């Protein structure tokens, strides 16, 4: 009997803690979701393309925000094979090139889906040339 009461008490505190945590989390999410697109875009624009792309998992709204970036800068350095600063095989190079092409296509694809003017899209797609240099050196 004593043990049961103990167990019950234990369970109820656990549930209470779980509920509080849930409320807290939802509250926070609500606050973030309450921010207008302008502000969320401001935050996204401070992230590199691949980091910003990851926020698309949050909700459809973030997919939309990601695709609305006014300027897409592809940092080629971010696609270089990891741990291989000086020497990279042809395989590594092919892999990072494939990723780069994918990365270039994704935002454009989402935008095309939204029936935007294609010429405008291409004009928006900028490649950061400064970052392109290391890859070129590796490719000899």
């Amino acid at each position, binding site marked *: 009997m004593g043990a049961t009461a103990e167990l019950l008490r234990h369970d109820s505190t656990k549930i209470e803690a779980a509920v509080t945590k*849930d409320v*807290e*989390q*939802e*509250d*926070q*999410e609500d*606050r*973030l979701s*309450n*921010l*207008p697109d*302008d*502000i969320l875009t*401001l*935050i*996204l*624009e*401070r*992230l590199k*393309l*691949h*980091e910003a*792309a*990851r*926020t*698309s*998992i*949050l909700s459809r709204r973030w997919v939309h925000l990601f695709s609305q970036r006014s300027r897409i800068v592809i940092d080629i350095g971010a*696609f270089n094979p990891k741990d291989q600063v000086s020497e990279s095989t042809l395989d590594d190079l092919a892999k990072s090139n494939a*990723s*780069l092409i*994918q*990365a270039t296509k*994704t935002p454009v694809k989402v935008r095309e889906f939204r029936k935007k003017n294609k010429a405008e899209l291409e004009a928006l797609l900028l490649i950061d040339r400064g970052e392109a240099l290391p890859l070129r050196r590796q490719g000899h």
Partner: protein
Amino acid sequence: MAAPESGDGNNGAARMVTLISSDNTRFEVEAAAASLSQTLQLTILDGGGGGGDGIPLPNVDSATLSKVLEYCIKHAPAAANGGAPNATAVDRAELERFDNEFVNIDQSVLYSLIMAAHNLEIEGLQSLVAKKVADMIKGKSPMEIRRTLGFPDPTPEEQAEMNAHMLEYGWAYE
């Protein structure tokens, strides 16, 4: 409130203005500090906010406003120097230290702050908070991002959507 002579030529003693938060708290600050807000600057230039009048800010509560003003007061001297081209390295380092410390706060406060900075058009504060939130997202996995931002754990359907997303956006996770 260190109030160095601004040397603006506009006025001798620092002009003060009163701002009134949504919950009716009155804040008296130097016009130079409040003018970091592009929105307020116009009103202040028109001579508003002085005397017993005060400028009502129906969208900003007192907790947020006091935080916003803390930022403005600290940044006003540098802003008065036109972005402080002649600020010493020590001054700049001190402002940077202040900024880092300043955004080391609860997420809910961060969101209220960025909203207020947006409404009041305080560019520096807006970018400071945006950068802080971006830093919270950087280098994290999808689950970590959700948790950090306070999103509840995904339902099975959401999980399936996340998996599909990660397949499509494979390049973002390498």
